[in-house]
């Protein structure tokens, strides 16, 4: 709409802005003016309604202005403008397709303005806007409506959750999704739900229900949207939360700046805002963490849902979903199966035809398969799958990447259901650890170490390793039977027990008693607990000890007490106490008793807080410490360590580790830059590296030792080389030839 030029005099005359300002300042005195404008509005509306589609630009503009004015002053004259909201609603509902875009936006904006002035309530606004959002054909209009709806939902939930409104909207969305399964309109329900879920406005089961219904739709877009929500919605939510808590404001800095710079109202305002923000953040910190369940956990009847998904989108031959969509749905189904331990037997046989190296994006299919396995899946169902993977992927003839993928997939499956493996196959596969390709070698080693833990009998004797052999001979290690569950415990409880024990010892030492006396210890413990009931009471005093605790924690981070026994004995050697060796058995028994802490005592809030702290410290230690590396890899293989069960398995996990793949240029550059020292001083790279190494107290390499060796000391060997007899020389040369034919010291492939 090109605005007609307005003459200067008229501009003063027809100044809506100033009139609006005056009316808002003093509504009573300007009532006459307002009434005149109201009549004008009525007249314009009448003119407009005679031909809404073919209205001239002038008419549209003047109507636009009138709506703007009335909307801004509507709250001053609620009685006179009673009909205004209904007019607007009628206009936008009936004519949104044909209205002039600017006028349309103005009407919607005015409705939102009325909502902000609380002339109308959210429900009526949203029930007006939502049908238009769904049916409108204009992209900009939909975008705007979506924004407005979203912001209104957020605003009305900002102070406290507006349950009635949420219920209404959720019902609308649910109906939208279920009313017509094949229409793409449901995409708006998905978008809205996802956005509100992300911002934690909706956290209950109802939106999950909406998404669940959307997953079972017929429209591919809708299916993809809803499936993506289940696969990534919660992560998105967490990320957003982290992001919002990240930005810290340095109040001191802001204050300091104010003293230096020119004082102005703007700065004062900025300072006030900063203070507000800091206060808000502090308040947020002290608030209890909101218990937000993930969408997958809030599902009602996941078994039925997973079955329906599988039958509708995967199993039949009728469905026409693209492979990408199918993969997404498959991911969701298997994730549900793995997470809730569901039983869908046809799922596993369905996989068979996809398990070939030629299959497109086979790695994510393999990942889905592994994800869908849990310890209650019958091994009979999995055995043919593993056999097929082994046959198709793992052979000398196949490329090393393929073999690595196959081995990794088998490992992931077996880590969830170890009974699915047969002895001969396992022994065959384990032999790939001699492979020259690093990926294959690592994958085979992973499989080996897994079975050392979960099924050492199936391995050949020499492959079992020390721990497993000892465990088997002492009868401590047994393969778990089908359906057998591990004895559960509270994660990190042993850490707490250990800490308590140390505290007790320290106290006794302070009193001058022998450290490990047991008389009256129970009373003491009780006393401890009594004053340790409040969290704050012993929170700050422990700051000195927690390094101590860390030290002990890495010995104890394995929750199952059975397996640890041998290790415990070995670890205890490092401790200073001489007589500990003899007491190792007692110590273990004592710890086990303490681990039962939860069953014998009531954990106080202070205990729980300490437990949290210890757990965090242990995880930090685990992430940093080199000593626990071996055990950590075992944990990875067991999948009860760093990765949580809620996180799904991705194709990345199945593929070879990133270092072994062919790198892209960016990755190469990043890798090259990684090791480079910063160029503060102008030295050679090697010199800087060496000084760094020295500073860290690390030893030199063999090559370096060789190079640094005194010249005179090397003379002897050099001479003897010349003096070698023919036979000796022949031997050396033969050895060289033989090595080269076999493929190096480590032999060529198996």
């Amino acid at each position, binding site marked *: 709409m090109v605005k007609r030029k307005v003459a200067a005099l008229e501009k003063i005359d027809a100044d809506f802005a100033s009139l609006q300002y005056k009316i808002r300042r003093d509504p009573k*005195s*300007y009532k*006459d003016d307002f009434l005149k404008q109201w009549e004008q509005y009525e*007249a*314009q509306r009448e*003119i407009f309604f005679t031909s809404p589609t073919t209205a001239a630009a002038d008419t549209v503009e003047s109507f636009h202005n009138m709506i703007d004015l009335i909307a801004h002053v509507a709250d001053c004259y609620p009685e006179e403008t009673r009909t205004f909201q209904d007019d607007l609603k009628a206009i936008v509902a009936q004519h949104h397709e044909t209205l002039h875009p600017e006028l349309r936006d103005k009407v919607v904006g005015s409705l939102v303005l009325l909502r902000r002035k609380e002339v109308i309530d959210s429900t009526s606004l949203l029930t007006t806007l939502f049908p238009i959002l769904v049916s409108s054909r204009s992209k900009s209009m939909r975008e705007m409506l979506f924004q407005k709806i979203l912001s209104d939902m957020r605003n009305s939930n900002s102070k406290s959750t507006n349950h009635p409104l949420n219920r209404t909207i959720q019902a609308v969305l649910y109906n939208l999704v279920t009313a017509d399964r094949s229409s793409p309109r449901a995409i708006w329900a998905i978008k809205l739900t996802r956005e509100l879920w992300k911002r934690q406005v909706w956290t209950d089961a109802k939106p999950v229900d909406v998404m669940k219904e959307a997953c079972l739709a017929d429209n591919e877009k809708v299916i993809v949207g809803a499936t993506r929500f289940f696969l990534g919605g919660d992560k998105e939510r967490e990320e957003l939360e982290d992001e919002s808590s990240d930005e810290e404001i340095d109040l001191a800095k802001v204050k300091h700046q104010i003293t230096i710079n020119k004082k102005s109202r703007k700065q004062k305002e900025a300072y006030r805002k900063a203070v507000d923000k800091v206060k808000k953040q502090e308040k947020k910190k002290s608030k209890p963490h909101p218990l937000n369940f993930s969408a997958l956990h809030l599902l009602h009847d996941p078994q039925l849902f997973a079955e329906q998904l599988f039958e509708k989108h995967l199993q039949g031959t009728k469905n026409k979903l693209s492979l990408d969509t199918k993969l997404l749905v498959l991911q969701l189904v298997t994730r549900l199966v793995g997470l809730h331990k569901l039983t869908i037997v046809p799922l596993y046989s369905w996989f068979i035809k996809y398990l070939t190296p030629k299959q497109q994006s086979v790695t994510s299919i393999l990942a889905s398969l592994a994800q869908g396995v849990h310890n209650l899946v019958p091994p009979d169902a999995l055995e043919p799958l593993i056999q097929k993977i082994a046959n198709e992927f793992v052979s000398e003839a196949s490329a090393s990447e393929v073999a690595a993928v196959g081995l990794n997939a088998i490992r992931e499956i077996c880590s969830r259901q170890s009974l699915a493996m047969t002895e001969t196959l396992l022994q065959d596969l384990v032999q790939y650890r001699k492979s020259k390709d690093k990926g294959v070698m690592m994958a085979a080693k992973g499989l080996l170490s897994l079975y050392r833990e979960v099924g050492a009998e199936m391995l050949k004797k020499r492959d079992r390793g020390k721990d497993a052999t000892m465990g088997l001979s002492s009868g401590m290690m047994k393969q778990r039977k089908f359906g057998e569950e591990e004895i559960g415990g509270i994660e990190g409880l042993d850490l707490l027990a250990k800490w308590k024990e140390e505290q007790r010892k320290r106290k006794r030492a302070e009193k001058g008693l022998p450290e490990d006396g047991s008389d009256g210890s129970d009373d003491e413990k009780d006393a401890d607990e009594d004053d340790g009931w409040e969290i704050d009471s012993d929170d700050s005093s422990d700051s000195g000890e927690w390094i101590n605790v860390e030290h002990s924690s890495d010995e104890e981070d394995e929750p199952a007490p059975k397996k640890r026994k041998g290790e415990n004995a070995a670890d205890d050697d490092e401790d200073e106490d001489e007589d500990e060796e003899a007491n190792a058995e007692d110590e273990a028994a004592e710890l086990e008793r303490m681990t039962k802490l939860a069953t014998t005592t009531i954990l106080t809030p202070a205990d729980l807080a300490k437990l949290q702290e210890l757990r965090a410290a242990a995880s930090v230690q685990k992430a940093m410490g080199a000593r626990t590396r071996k055990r950590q890899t075992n944990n990875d293989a067991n999948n009860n360590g760093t990765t949580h069960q809620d996180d799904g398995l991705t194709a990345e996990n199945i593929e070879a580790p990133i270092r072994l793949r062919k790198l892209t240029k960016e990755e190469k550059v990043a890798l090259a830059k990684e090791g480079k020292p910063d160029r503060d001083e102008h030295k050679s790279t090697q010199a800087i590296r060496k000084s760094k190494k020295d500073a860290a107290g690390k030893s030199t390499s063999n090559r370096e030792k060789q190079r640094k060796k005194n010249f005179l000391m090397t003379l002897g060997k050099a001479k003897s080389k010349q003096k070698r007899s023919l036979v000796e020389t022949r031997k050396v040369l033969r050895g060289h030839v033989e090595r080269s034919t076999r493929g190096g010291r480590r032999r060529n492939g198996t």
Partner: protein
Amino acid sequence: MGSSARKKQEKKKDFQKPKYKVGKAKPKASNFTDTSFKSKAIVMNQQSLSTAAPDVVQQFKHNLSLASSSRSDKQRRDALAYLTSQLSSHPPINPVGTNILLSKLLPLISDSSTPVRSQLLKLLRVLPEEEAKHSTEQAIMFIRAGMTHLSADISGDSLGVMEWLLDVAEDELVTIPGGWVKTLSTFCVTMGWSLASTVPGWTSAARSSLRAKDAQTLARQISILSRFLQAGLRSETAAVPSSEEYWDSFYGLPRSSNAFEYLNLFGSRRDEEGEMYPNREARQQVFYRRFFEPVTKGIEKVKKEGGAAGRAAVGLDQVLKDGMGDYAASAGMDAQDLLNLW
């Protein structure tokens, strides 16, 4: 860093001022681009070539479109003047018909330029009355919009148009849907006679107008209102019934533009304001209920102010007395009761 003498020389060159000489062309700048072009032919996409001048019909239509949609106010005024001259010639030339002409030109009532509005009024005056009658409904809408316009000039000029409409079609004006009540309320609002319940206390919002010009406008408004009321409240004389007309009402084809308007078969539901008030009694009734009090109060107030407005108010008072003198608030059913029932 150019160290050699040659390089230094080269550098210097950049900063040397070009020397202009009399009688010689200005040296071209270094970044000069030659934009001239040569072409054998110039092709034009569309062109209307005709040997004859555009005929009258074409010209009329062209001017009509100029008047209704040109951006320049001078052009609009000139186009209106042309149309006026065409319409006032003998016989009047009007190829599009009065109805379409009006629907195009009525939005100009709220035009921002004064010459255009005055020219429009002149044009309206030359339109044939019989044909203009049929556009009453449309016209009154734009007049109402004009009367309540924020700009005082426009609302003043639209009174002139109102006068024209009263001259042309006063009977239609008061009987068409919305014509009676809506127009009355527009009058009341523009004059500041508030329709809502009176504010308690002595002081009312002072009329922002004590200037001479506003007083003049007020007088004009009152006099036109009195004309309007006169038209609406005039006593009707029943025509002598003739048998021919009686049968015609059953079997004859209706002559008016929208004969079954009162049935409102296709429009939206009307409220009290948009209702038709076809006879005097109905008009009296609704006037008494909604406007009598504010109007009488307003009259009192203006009378006290005196001057031209006071004189006009006396006239209005007289009209009111004539029109409402024989009215007695009846307890009978009226349209409003029926509407409330619905």
